[in-house]
């Protein structure tokens, strides 16, 4: 009975996604066949979720591998390879798996696959998934379709984590067959809508339709080709010449032009990531909270969004984006730029802002410097090559750094590592016992109302203390030719092609 309900639910979901739900483009009856070429902003480094760290890699993975869980465009956790779940207590998660799922190499997906994959992610020397799965103690195989995750401590973010790479299931036989070159040629490893064909670095990556995909009727396309085009202008040119069908990003200045062209589709929604600058609270001048606040007051987010990003995006007041259930639109500690108020807080000091040589980031730096001048604050811009800048910001060798975040499905991913004392991304060396308490509590409580309250409190305090000056949230966009249909936009920037068709 339970299974029937789930199957019906799945079918309803599939139907809803094809029917113009929020985030979905207009559609008629899907056509099968054809292939789509998708632009990637950089070349991939690996095709193994185990050691992946790039957004573009995750984008390919979502079409090749299945995760234990999925999300809908509103970030609600939905079934994936896990059909049903039951949180018996905060440290025991019981999962019922889809049955009859096969990997592309023909081997079956079952409870043992889950255990083997999680063990591999947790123990392999080169695994980047260890911290994702740090809360997982053991995975117990109950029978072929049931597993139980035993946690070391309560972890409200577990299911969201299992949507992404840490929850992607690979065929152990394919891993073994691939050997040392697996990450370059993962033949037969996934169970997703498309399967790996070949990857010629710096040229193309090809996937073909998984004809025996476990979700009935999907995918519609016969194949996908990915091409790395590391220049936004070249991406737009390739879209216009028909060399690519879909892109994730183009330059903000070109959006209006593309929207006006009926041959193309551009639509967007707020993404999960935030943009702004981090201030080092452990060294002068920003060990003085008044100076941090003065900068937060003087920078005009609206001017940045309008002048540098052509209003593509949403003004940010804190780290949690409007796409999240934890978003609170009423919190506006710092709103429009206010030079007079900033001056009353602190003025007459100088600081150095580190960024890269990217032309748009240079414009941003110039605009901010001009605004800060109005408040009597001198901002010197120091441009460095990416690896140097990255290392200096991480090692707290800075006064101000332009560091942005691509965002995570669970609000914890936008908060904990950044502002908890000693957090992995706490470059600002920010520490506030109250904030630590709220963030810890939100991590271990499964009650969403309670968690939202925690995040509201923490967010307000962080913004007021200003270890980070928030400017805007980015967007997740459909940028394609008009032959692409049933493209569902997700805030996590991932381009999921299973339901997309061409015609």
């Amino acid at each position, binding site marked *: 009975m339970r299974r029937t309900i789930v199957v019906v639910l799945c079918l309803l979901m599939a139907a809803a996604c094809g029917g113009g739900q929020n985030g979905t483009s207009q559609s008629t009856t899907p056509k099968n066949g054809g292939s789509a070429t998708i632009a990637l902003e950089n070349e991939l480094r690996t095709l193994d979720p185990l050691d992946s*760290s790039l957004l573009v890699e995750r984008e390919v993975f979502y079409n090749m591998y299945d995760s234990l869980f999925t999300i809908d465009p509103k970030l609600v956790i939905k079934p994936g390879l896990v059909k049903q779940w039951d949180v018996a207590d905060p440290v025991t998660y019981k999962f019922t798996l889809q049955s009859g799922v096969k990997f592309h190499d023909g081997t079956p997906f079952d409870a043992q696959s889950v255990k083997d994959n999680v063990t591999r992610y947790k123990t392999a020397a080169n695994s980047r998934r260890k*911290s994702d799965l740090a809360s997982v103690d053991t995975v117990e195989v109950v029978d072929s379709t049931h597993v139980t995750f035993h946690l070391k401590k309560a972890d409200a973010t577990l299911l969201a984590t299992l949507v992404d790479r840490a929850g992607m299931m690979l065929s152990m036989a394919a891993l073994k067959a691939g050997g040392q070159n697996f990450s*370059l040629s993962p033949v037969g490893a996934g169970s997703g809508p498309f399967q790996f064909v070949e990857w010629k670095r*710096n040229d193309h990556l090809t996937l073909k339709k998984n004809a025996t995909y476990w979700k009935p009727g999907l995918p519609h396309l016969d194949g996908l080709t990915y091409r790395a085009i590391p220049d936004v202008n070249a991406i737009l040119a390739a879209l216009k010449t028909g060399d690519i069908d879909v892109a994730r990003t183009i330059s903000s200045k070109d959006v209006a032009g593309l929207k006006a062209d009926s041959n193309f589709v551009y639509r967007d929604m707020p993404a999960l990531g935030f943009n702004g600058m981090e201030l080092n609270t452990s060294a002068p001048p920003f060990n003085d909270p008044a100076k941090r606040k003065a900068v937060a007051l003087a920078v005009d987010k609206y001017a940045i969004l309008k002048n540098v990003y052509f209003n593509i995006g949403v003004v940010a007041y804190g780290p949690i984006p409007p796409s999240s259930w934890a978003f609170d639109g009423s919190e506006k500690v710092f709103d429009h730029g206010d030079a007079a108020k900033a001056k009353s807080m602190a003025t007459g000091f100088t600081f150095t802002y580190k960024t890269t040589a990217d032309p748009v980031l240079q414009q941003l730096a110039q605009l901010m410097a001009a605004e800060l001048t109005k408040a009597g604050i001198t901002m010197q811009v120091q441009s460095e090559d990416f*690896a*140097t800048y990255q290392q200096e910001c*991480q090692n707290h060798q800075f006064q101000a750094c332009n560091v942005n*975040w691509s965002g995570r499905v669970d609000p914890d991913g936008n908060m904990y590592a950044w502002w908890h004392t000693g957090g*992995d991304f706490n470059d600002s060396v920010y520490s506030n016992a109250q904030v630590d308490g709220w963030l810890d509590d939100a991590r271990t409580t499964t009650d969403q109302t309670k968690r939202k309250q925690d995040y509201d409190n923490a967010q307000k305090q962080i913004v007021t203390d200003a270890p980070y000056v928030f400017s805007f949230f980015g967007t997740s966009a459909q940028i394609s030719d008009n032959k692409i249909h049933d493209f569902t936009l997700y805030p996590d920037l991932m381009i999921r092609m299973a339901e997309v068709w061409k015609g």
Partner: protein
Amino acid sequence: MTTYVLRRLLLMLPVAFLVTVGVFLLIHLSRGDPALVLLGEDRSPQAIAAIHHELGLDQPLYVQYGIWLGRLARGDLGRSVITHQTVSDAILERLPATLELGVVALLWSLLVAIPLGTIAAVRRGSVADHLATGFTVGGVSVPNFFIGIVLIFVLSVSLHLFPFGGYVPLTRDPYESLRHVLLPAIALGTAGAAINMRFTRSSMIEVLNHDFIRTARAKGASWRRVVFAHALKNALIPVVTVVGLQIGGIIEGAIVTETVFTWPGVGRLAVESIFDRDYTVVQGIVLLAAFSYMFANLLVDLVYGWLDPRISYA
């Protein structure tokens, strides 16, 4: 002759050793950390430490160098720190594109330089000479990336005569391959063409003043025969020297041109690897560049012997 070549090859080893020390120190002492590049948004102190350990970056520099040199002695350049691809695969994959670009650029530079240089020398002070000299000054002083950008703007963007950037392998479609390679090759080869033209002209002028030219003329040989059969071959010795250095410098010159034209060759791989602090790949490419210089020099010395029989290495 064989002994000479063998001795020269052996002499390359100490030079290569110094190059390896230099490049190893330079790239390892520069700021930036491949672990951070690798981890991106997944960075954590544990993950950084794990990668340092995995790559051996937690060892003292001389130990890291020793390990790398030991592998190199067995012909193993190691694996890319960033992509795990073997360095030799990474370079070999990109080498055909760079060679195609380099060869066409060199052909372009010689096809322009030798006839122009000869004409300028034979008709000294003529309009042709002045034009050729003007070309030289321009070719040497305008940087190749600028020539590249102008070519792209005029011939690809405005006139749509040539594709903008990109590479088509010669084996896939020779015609398209040539269409794609022409603009970057002109951008890369023009400075060389200017220098080669200058050398051809001055060397030719010198040779034309030699006694044997007068003798050849006195024997009744035609002016054309004198210029092309007697003078040119002798005039080419200094040209061969610079061309040799240019062959060795193909990778170096291609770094900028390949970036401008998004040409997937070794030069761009070098740039990407430097930005990513991909130590092993950078080391492999610099070593390759050093060896190409050394081999080009050896080749030049051997060609001398062919051009001028008085030079003998026996």
